[in-house]
């Protein structure tokens, strides 16, 4: 960076969120991913002569749910408009989208970067149909068009240009990604294209300078690539400007192999989209009662979950983890209900042993061999002293492979912690008899011998001695 100029990057994001409906936004064809080409493109999706769009009410509900979750305004009247341009993956020669009067306006995404929390204001979110897909290398001299995806409902979320680093942009995206999955409006599958981001990047010589010319980077489909692409683009623009050049307003693609952005070839100058309200679709009027019903059904949101956990003393990392996945939160809630006095124990086990085992086995939360209820059973035995921490881990492994409950495993493996004073006393006596020298050494002042003797009793008890009780008993027998 030039010593004389303190460049500020200005970044805005446009995210296309594929809504989780079973059928398309304007037709009854299926939206499932991965089908054979064009088997999920009906006559309406293909734009065949005389076909007409019919709007899917579930897409509206998901848009409203999103809008409420980010504190945005829901438009009582919104309009579908045609965005006209020619491209092979756009069957009608226009995309049905929203131009003036979108369904959602405003709202804020709360993002975290390290310890810092910041808000990213949204301009709007609007409904539109997705285009199809092209394959360019499967046919000699030709491109193949698959219109299965054409007509899939999208919510296009547009942020204000209020981010100033790639890291901030990625933090915003991650927060948005978590949120849309959390509230069930999108499955967030980046590989399948359910969540696609375009970044608008410009730089200016200082926070008070007028905005510079921006470039749009398209089709970024991983958080890592997004960060690299934006970083590269910022550097590129600064370099150009410092060398006395000008930034051309253009669309660029990210080349992951080279780690660079480059101009899209054959992209014409700014399209004239000739937006006008779609005459085949009357205005969308939203009944306030519908909005209230959706509001009432909104789950607790990640931000609130995180705060709640932190206030209970759960550590930051665990709170973050639990607040990133609705299913994890449900699991947490099950544990919390069973053990209301043990938030930290629950969080430790949930995020540690349990999640660790799930990740190692590459299983989803819903497929866990040890259910949250079963885990709660195990944690209860720790709290009531039947199991030491160490034995509990052993028990957990056994539960994971056998599917048994904690009590069943404890019974079968004889894992119950020994707390019976007589039984423990017997073990202590026998060890002291076995190691008279170490006992005498301890009595003479060698504190370290206690450790050794505790270890021996533990071994003799096959790890089942209650450590605290054992310690107390041993010291009583040894006289100090």
């Amino acid at each position, binding site marked *: 960076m030039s010593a004389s100029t303190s460049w500020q990057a200005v970044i805005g994001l446009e995210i296309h969120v594929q809504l989780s409906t079973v059928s398309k936004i304007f037709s009854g064809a299926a939206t499932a991913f991965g089908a054979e080409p064009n088997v999920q493109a009906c*006559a309406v999706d*293909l*734009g*065949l*002569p*005389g*076909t*007409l*769009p*019919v*709007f899917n009410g579930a897409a509206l509900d998901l848009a409203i749910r999103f809008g409420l979750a980010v504190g945005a305004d829901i438009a009582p009247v919104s309009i579908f408009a*045609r965005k*006209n341009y*020619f491209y*092979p993956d756009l*069957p*009608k*020669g*226009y995309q049905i989208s929203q131009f003036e009067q979108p369904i959602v306006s405003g709202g804020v995404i709360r993002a975290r970067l390290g310890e810092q929390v910041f808000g990213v204001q949204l301009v709007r979110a609007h409904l539109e149909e997705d285009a199809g897909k092209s394959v360019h290398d499967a046919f000699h001299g030709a491109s193949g*068009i698959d*219109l299965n995806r054409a007509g899939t409902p999208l919510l296009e979320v547009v942020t204000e240009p209020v981010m100033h680093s790639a890291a901030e942009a990625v933090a915003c995206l991650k927060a948005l990604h978590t949120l849309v999955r959390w509230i069930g409006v999108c499955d967030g599958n980046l590989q399948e294209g359910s969540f696609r981001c375009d970044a608008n990047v410009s730089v200016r010589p200082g926070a008070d300078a007028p905005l510079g010319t921006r470039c749009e980077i398209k089709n970024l489909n991983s958080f890592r690539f997004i960060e690299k692409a934006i970083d590269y683009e910022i550097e590129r623009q600064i370099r150009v400007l410092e060398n006395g050049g000008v930034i051309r307003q253009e669309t660029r693609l990210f080349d992951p192999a080279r780690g660079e952005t480059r101009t899209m070839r054959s992209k014409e100058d700014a399209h*004239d989209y*000739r*937006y*006008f309200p779609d*005459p*085949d*679709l*009357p205005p969308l009027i939203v009944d306030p009662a519908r909005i209230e019903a959706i509001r009432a059904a909104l789950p607790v949101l990640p931000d609130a979950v995180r705060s709640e956990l932190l206030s209970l003393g759960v550590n930051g990392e665990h709170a973050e983890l639990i607040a990133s996945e609705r299913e994890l939160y449900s699991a947490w809630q099950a544990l919390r209900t069973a053990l209301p006095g043990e938030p930290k124990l629950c969080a430790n086990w949930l995020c540690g042993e349990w999640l660790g085992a799930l990740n190692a086995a590459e299983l989803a939360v819903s497929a866990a061999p040890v259910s949250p209820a079963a885990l709660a059973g195990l944690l209860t035995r720790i709290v009531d002293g039947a199991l030491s921490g160490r034995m509990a881990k052993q028990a957990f492994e056994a539960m994971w492979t056998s599917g048994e409950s904690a009590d069943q495993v404890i019974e079968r493996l004889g894992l119950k912690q020994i707390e019976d004073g007589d039984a423990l006393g017997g073990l202590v006596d026998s060890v002291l008899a076995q190691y008279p020298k170490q006992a005498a050494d301890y009595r003479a002042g060698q504190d370290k011998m206690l450790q050794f003797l505790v270890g021996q009793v533990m071994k003799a008890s096959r790890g089942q001695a209650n450590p605290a009780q054992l310690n107390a008993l041993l010291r009583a027998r040894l006289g100090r």
Partner: protein
Amino acid sequence: MSDRDLAPLHSLRDLAAELADGATTPAALLEQSRAALDACAGLNALITRLPAPAAPGASGGHPLWGVPYAHKDLFCTAGVRTTAGSKMLADFVPPYSAHIHERLDAAGAVLVGKANMDEFAMGSSSEHSAFGPVANPHDPSRVAGGSSGGSAALVAARAVRFATASDTGGSIRQPAAFCGVTGIKPTWGRVSRYGMIAYASSLDQAGVIATSAVDCAIALQCIAGHDRRDSTSQALAVPDWLDQLDRFDLQGLRIGLPTPMYGEGIDVEVLEAVAEARRVLEQAGAKVVDVDLPNAGWAIAAYYVIAPCEASSNLARYDGVRFGHRAEGVRNLEELYTRSRTEGFGAEVQRRILIGSFALSAGYYDAYYLKAQRVRRLIAEDFARAFEHCDLLLSPTTPTPAFRIGEKLDDPLAMYAADVNTVAVNLAGLPAMSLPCGYVGRLPVGLQLIGKSWDEGLLLAAAHAYQRRTAWHRVLPESLR
């Protein structure tokens, strides 16, 4: 005019009774239709003639069961070529049918052909067809009108009892007037547009042409009503129009004469025929009053902005990729689009696409499309105010009878200007009919009736009442006398 010049009094109701008691059969009707189609082949009214029209299934008692009819070639018919009068769709055989076709099929009506028309419904003469112009049965040197010229000509030639048609700026009413038959364009939203190839979505409406109001009522009743596949189709119950028609009395009917529709440029003989029709109605007890439509002067301009704008977008799907004409030997995608479209669309269609693309383009949207839609509201409000003083409006359908083939082809604006009495109705979405009310020599003159939204019943009833007192709708083309 002698009785030999008139078709016998015989409605679809009479026909249905004859079919019900075996006095005639669908096969016999089909044979008559076949002979009549052969006889009028010179009119070029058909693009596709079904070689073997399917016999209807068992009669469900529907009044259209067994009745031969034609579709304007704008309506998709599964397995039967549908061209919209265009080279772009010259070989298009849709795998689905229009909603109105499903209704007629379910009723047992028998499709015998797809009628010729102005390409993509853009035109007022049926000369802008890729398949040649349609001649007027009353005088084959003249146009049948457009864009539903083929439908009107077939009915006038008595080759079918009724035909489906569409009306965006007058395309049912004007050909009906030129061919001496009766046509109805219902309220926008009354008939589903699913499977009707789109021209200008907010103006297009499907309707029917037949030889009488009674027959129009029967045919329209069959195709009208809600269809979930069309988001602009109204979920309103369809009244029993025949019942309304039978019980109607002209006494006390208030008829408005919209001053702007009697402007200069209307032939004297047309005005006289319409005046005579008015007298017939007055004698039967109707009351006539002058009304104004102060903003009607903008109607042509508003129409020729809105329609081309919507058309330019509706026709973007014709790109040679998934269906329709595809140019040969293209070297890249741009050429595929540009050559397929330039080859596939005729001159009038290209003109309107260009006007529409221009009017929607950056910087012009407010001044053209948006402005036209505001004016449209003013025109609709004018009609609403007029209807405070009357039950329906009466005017000439067109300024002149049918003009000669080729006469207006070089002057698109002259062609547009002749739509002066019809386009305002589409802008307001109102129902309207044209019915014959006289002749200038051999050429029919049409009378337009305009009703309030959803009031097709009154229109049909008034038209029927007029037709019970007159015989203009029964006058046969000379060649059939």
